[in-house]
């Protein structure tokens, strides 16, 4: 790779030297260099991110059988979506999941960040402990909790039993499995969002708190009038990114912990797409649902930008 790029660069420089006058070539060379530097990533992103996005939208209007035939069927996939009880069910599950998960994750990560923002003994170790689950794969995370939540014999069941609390089937009950997935996801992701909150908290000048303390403001008042307003850009960023990653992620965890069950109660929409495509071979239908999710994400992002006007995290310099 290195050799190829160097070669291109050299020959390009040679070419521009012979063709253009030295005065013009400075700017031309800069442009050419920029093009060559950008080429690998831009082509890669176009082919493996941009093109799939386009294909996803286009395929939504097709029926795909196995690998051979593509038949244009217009909006049939979309009509089918809204008549498909499993799709509607997973849409409802996903909404319920997000409505609990996103605020839950937000509050837990903010609380952890507030807890360890000040220096006290071993604070770095605690920060590491809260973040540690985040470096482990979701497959392993899912297995650990499946093991700990095993009916009758799992650690959680045993401990609750020790305190005289009899456990239901945590992952076997359609009413509970989704909340187990939510809890595990919060445990897994809290350290990451805690770090982003910590970065936001660091940007708040310490003098504000000192002045407030002198004025006799209590802990709650300081949070309400200093921390919360000044943390808004960070909160915006976290709401946006956590929703995107939670709406489209977590297949690994579901796959390992519940496989979408019991009774489809943990079949999140992204898992349903995976199932439709790779279990039933419904590539067209899966693409239509994918396009639908992208539309939701777009509405959510644009809506959040418009509502909060907090999206100023990219005023690029110069």
């Amino acid at each position, binding site marked *: 790779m290195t050799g190829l790029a160097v070669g291109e660069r050299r020959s390009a420089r040679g070419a521009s030297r012979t063709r253009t006058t030295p005065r013009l070539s400075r700017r031309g060379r800069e442009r050419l260099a920029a093009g060559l530097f950008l080429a*690998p*990533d*831009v082509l890669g992103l176009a082919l493996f*991110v941009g093109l799939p996005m386009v294909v996803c939208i286009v395929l939504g209007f097709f029926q795909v059988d196995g690998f051979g035939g593509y038949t244009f069927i217009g909006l049939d996939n979309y009509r089918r979506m809204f008549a498909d009880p499993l799709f509607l069910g997973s849409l409802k599950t996903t909404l319920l999941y997000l409505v609990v998960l996103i605020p839950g994750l937000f509050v837990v990560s903010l609380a952890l960040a507030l807890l360890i923002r000040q220096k006290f003994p071993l604070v770095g170790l605690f920060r590491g402990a809260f973040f540690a689950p985040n470096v482990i*794969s979701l497959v392993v995370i899912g297995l650990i909790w499946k093991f700990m939540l095993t009916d009758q014999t799992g650690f959680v069941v045993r401990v609750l039993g020790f305190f005289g609390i009899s456990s239901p089937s945590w992952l076997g009950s359609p009413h509970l499995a989704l909340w187990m997935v939510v809890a595990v996801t919060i*445990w897994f992701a809290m350290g990451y969002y805690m770090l*982003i909150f910590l970065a936001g908290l660091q940007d708040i000048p310490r003098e504000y708190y000192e002045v407030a303390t002198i004025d006799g403001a209590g802990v709650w008042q300081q949070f309400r009038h200093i921390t919360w307003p000044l943390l808004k850009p*960070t909160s915006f960023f976290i709401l946006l990114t956590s929703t995107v990653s939670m709406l489209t992620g977590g297949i690994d965890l579901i796959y390992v912990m519940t496989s979408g069950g019991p009774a489809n109660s943990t079949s999140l929409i992204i898992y349903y797409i995976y199932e439709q495509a790779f279990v039933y071979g419904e590539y067209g239908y899966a693409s239509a649902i994918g396009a639908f999710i992208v539309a939701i994400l777009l509405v959510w992002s644009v809506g959040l930008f418009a509502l909060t006007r907090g999206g100023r995290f990219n005023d690029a310099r110069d």
Partner: protein
Amino acid sequence: MPATDTTPAAPTRPARARTTRSGWVRFAVALVLAVAAVFPLLWMLSGSFRTPDDVFSPSLLPAHPTLHNFSYVLTQVAFPRYLLNSLIVAVVVTVVALFFHSMAAYALARLRFPGRDTLFVLIFSTLLITFPVILVPLFLIVHTLGILDSYAGIIIPSIFNAFGIFLLRQFYLSLPKELEEAAIVDGCGYWRVYWKVILPLSRPVFAALAVLFFLANWNAFLWPMVVTTSTDLSLVQVGIAAFQQQHAADWNFSLAASTIAALPTLGLFVIFQRRIVESIKTSGFK
């Protein structure tokens, strides 16, 4: 601290006493929560040393600690192969991605060309397109390219990600302009400037990004599972999930396999904790 200058000495003393007391409360709360946070990981570790009849025992330590689970998954299952596959994929993706991303970021941050800002916004907006959403079309594209069920099929689509470009661009924007101007006046081409000036300066950012990329690829499951069919190409996470499905009752083996897969990531985290923390923090704003 400015506060000590403005306030008389007497009132600060009770204030300081109060902060230390609340500091100890924080310490106690954090200690309990931190133990709870890492407990499931310790439980996995403990379970991986247990015998089959002991694996569900609620005692914290194994009754008869054994290494048999590890030797079983490392000899009776193709686990070493999975580990090797994951290592190859994660290292190749990390190295190539750092190289490509830093090239792109250098151009976006330091070179002038028409349409630069538009291109940056376009690249940045691909961050909204997350992997699982394009899973199906990406699979079909990779199928069309004829690289299903190959290392190339796992590796190539995993390289391209705007996050790295974005972080590196931020870093390159912060470098003083004089740095490469001197080199350019000396008659260096842009490639030489990149290679001799920019790359050496990138080392600290590279270290942080390399760890993040390595972790992401070592932990990847969905794409490697979808794109491969032959078990020779299974990555470690795919191998573990498949093993657990086939041997649902053998938790001692599954936990040993999980521990082997998790230890390198925890090790990297412990070694590079400060760098990882810093790069996640910078990704959060600006």
